[in-house]
């Protein structure tokens, strides 16, 4: 770890971070700031046939790197909730997008920081299977396609199959010689495209963050602070800080010195403290409200937008000619596909607000469900009485996906691939679920239906400039942003209806009283006069 991160870990908060990042005017700066130029290393000046060969070359110098990566979620796709003990992670959960990884590894592992995870037999201890390049490529040419179990393409291939478009074979020598600290594009190569399309999954992360302006992200603004992802998600031993799986929802206290091992540098308060406004009344809001609530007034603030629903029950509906049908919405985003179902997208999305204490509960493969109400695939914990909770902005993604109507579990379906049971190839749910459930080791009754599902994720990226933060009235009004938030008294939103009725009646009756009193005086004085 060198360059920007090293400088940052010794710096004192925002002011220094700003100075450092101002130097890094573009993505290439991450490479320039390193003390090593990887194009000068003889170990990398050779022909590489496969990704693992490159990793072996990396490990000659970076002896501990693979082992470090193997301890991270980027490798294990698994995490344990320290509070509840629930074992989650991409490997185990069922989400609202492509549902589950099991039986679809060949496709899904295009975003695994490794090579060769094609089924449950993957050996997590083999060091050469760690993919260094997906995070450290400086050429922008290193791509991993679905269907290759995490390998890049070593031969020119048509992609998507039958499209007439081709992806060139990767030049591993060039990529290996371009090694740099991860840029926004490196992280974004997976995190911007989660859920199968640009911006689909998160809503606060999409390819517009490769070259963002100030309006979109005040910290990443390419002409301004130009933060990379790792400026906040500062990394040691390849462990990326600030995971959605363990959010520090209610951090208090002063700004922390960067590099303190027990501090989470990814929280806003790490640099800004929890009293950053120089205005007591605004500062006292931090006792109840997350920074993100005011400072991310909308997410997906661009034309890319984000997906708000995925209805799998519409999948396998074929076109009039009996063939696969694909439709886009007016903004060119996927709207329907016979393989996958129906989607709804939106841009400039107003978040849904929830009390959140940092702990989310996930549905993992095999969990029992109650199909009478929307199944919460990811649910934020917390409430107004919990001192660790704050009001957070969230993206709620709603969908429909299949479940076993007898065993009352969400099903695992084999979707990707061109074999005889893959859903996207055969358009047959029974076969796809049968294969998926078998791979997951779950019983399947043979009966399925579709159930409504919801996935609630906190929003934390695309922080707006302060001029664009929510104004007071946007919450302090009768029908404001927080109109459904319970357990807190908000001036202008709340009040006793009875007090208002009695109070205004008192004022009105007084007024009527004095007007009548005055009128009688006037009339009587005229009579007398």
């Amino acid at each position, binding site marked *: 770890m060198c360059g920007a991160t090293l400088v940052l870990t010794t710096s004192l908060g925002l002011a220094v971070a700003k100075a450092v990042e101002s130097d890094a005017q573009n993505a290439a700066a991450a490479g320039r700031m390193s003390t090593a130029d990887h194009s000068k290393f003889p170990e990398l000046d050779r022909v590489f046939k496969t990704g693992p060969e490159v990793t072996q070359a990396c490990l000659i110098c970076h002896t501990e790197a693979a082992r470090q990566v193997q301890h991270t979620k980027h490798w294990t796709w698994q995490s344990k909730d320290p509070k509840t003990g629930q074992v989650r992670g991409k490997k185990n959960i069922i989400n609202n997008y492509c549902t589950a990884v099991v039986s679809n590894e060949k496709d899904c592992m295009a975003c695994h920081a490794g090579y060769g995870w094609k089924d449950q037999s993957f050996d997590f201890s083999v060091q050469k299977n760690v993919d260094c390049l997906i995070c450290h490529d400086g050429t922008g040419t290193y791509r991993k396609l679905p269907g290759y179990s995490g390998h890049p393409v070593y031969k020119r291939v048509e992609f998507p199959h039958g499209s007439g478009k081709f992806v060139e074979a990767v030049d591993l020598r060039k990529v290996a010689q371009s090694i740099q600290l991860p840029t926004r594009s490196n992280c974004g190569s997976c995190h911007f495209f989660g859920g199968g399309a640009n911006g689909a999954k998160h809503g606060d992360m999409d390819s517009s963050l490769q070259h963002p302006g100030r309006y979109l992200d005040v910290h990443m603004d390419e002409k301004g602070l130009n933060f990379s992802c790792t400026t906040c998600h500062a990394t040691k031993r390849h462990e990326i800080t600030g995971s959605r799986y363990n959010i520090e929802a209610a951090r208090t206290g002063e700004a922390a010195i960067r590099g303190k091992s027990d501090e989470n540098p990814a929280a806003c308060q790490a640099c800004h403290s929890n009293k950053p406004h120089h205005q*007591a*009344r605004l*500062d*006292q809001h931090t*006792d109840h409200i997350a920074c993100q609530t005011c400072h991310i007034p909308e997410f997906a603030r661009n034309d890319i937008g984000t997906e708000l629903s995925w209805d799998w029950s519409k999948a396998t509906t074929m076109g009039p000619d009996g063939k696969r049908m694909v439709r886009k919405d007016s903004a060119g985003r996927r709207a329907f596909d016979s393989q996958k179902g129906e989607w709804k997208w939106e841009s400039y999305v107003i978040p849904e607000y929830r009390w959140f204490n940092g702990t989310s509960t996930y549905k993992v493969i095999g969990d029992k469900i109650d199909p009478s109400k929307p199944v919460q695939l990811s649910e934020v914990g917390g409430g107004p009485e919990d001192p660790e909770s704050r009001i957070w902005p969230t993206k709620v993604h709603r969908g429909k996906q299949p479940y076993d109507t007898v065993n009352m579990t969400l099903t695992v379906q084999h979707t990707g691939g061109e074999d005889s049971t893959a859903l996207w190839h055969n358009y047959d749910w029974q076969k796809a679920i049968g294969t998926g459930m078998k791979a997951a080791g779950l019983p399947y009754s043979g009966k399925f239906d579709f159930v409504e599902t919801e996935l609630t994720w906190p929003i934390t990226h695309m922080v707006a400039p302060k001029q664009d933060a929510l*104004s*007071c*009235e946007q919450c*302090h*009004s*009768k029908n404001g942003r927080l109109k459904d938030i319970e357990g807190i*008294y908000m*001036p*202008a*939103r*709340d*009040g*006793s209806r009875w*007090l*208002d009725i*009695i*109070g*205004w009646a*008192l*004022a009105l009756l*007084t*007024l009527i*009283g*004095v007007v009548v*009193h*005055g009128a*009688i*005086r006037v009339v*009587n*004085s005229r009579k*007398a006069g």
Partner: protein
Amino acid sequence: MTVERIYVFKKFERFWHWSQALLIIFMLLTGFEVHGSYHLFGFADAVAMHTVAAWTLVGLWVFAIFWHFTTGEWKQYLPTTEKVVAMIRFYSVGIFQGAPHPYRPTVLKKHNPLQRLAYLGVLLFIGPLLWITGWFYLFFGDWKAWGVDGLLSLEWVAFFHTAGAFMMLAFLIAHIYLTTTGHTPLSHIKAMITGWEEVD
């Protein structure tokens, strides 16, 4: 009928009255916007101006209390039962018949018995209700540090603050009207401006 003029309101007293009047009207205006009753200045400005007005009123009151005690004028608010019934009868009957005012103010007793009671009510009940609840409202962020966060709820603090505001509003309406019940409709107002009251 001879008209006599007496000097009832001293310079500071008049300054205090009118600046307090403006501040209270302004605080009612901004306060009910903060309460959510209407949109006028915008919530943020309403809150900011309400707060500035509150601190200004605090400052004014410090001077006023000092003045009342050093001059002995506080005695003007001592309640009395004398002539209360007569006053009520005057306002409800006599005033329509052109009956003479049952109370004649003097420099030492400038308020009639009903005024004394009303102002004492404002000073000892409505005022403190607004001050105390307003203080806690303003320092909501410090409740934890003061150790009162378990005892108070913002909902009830706001409730009583708003209740106080409604009472102040009703008082204000009645008070303004009653200024017209002097020797002439404007003589009370003139007195509060010039200091000189015309009495029958």
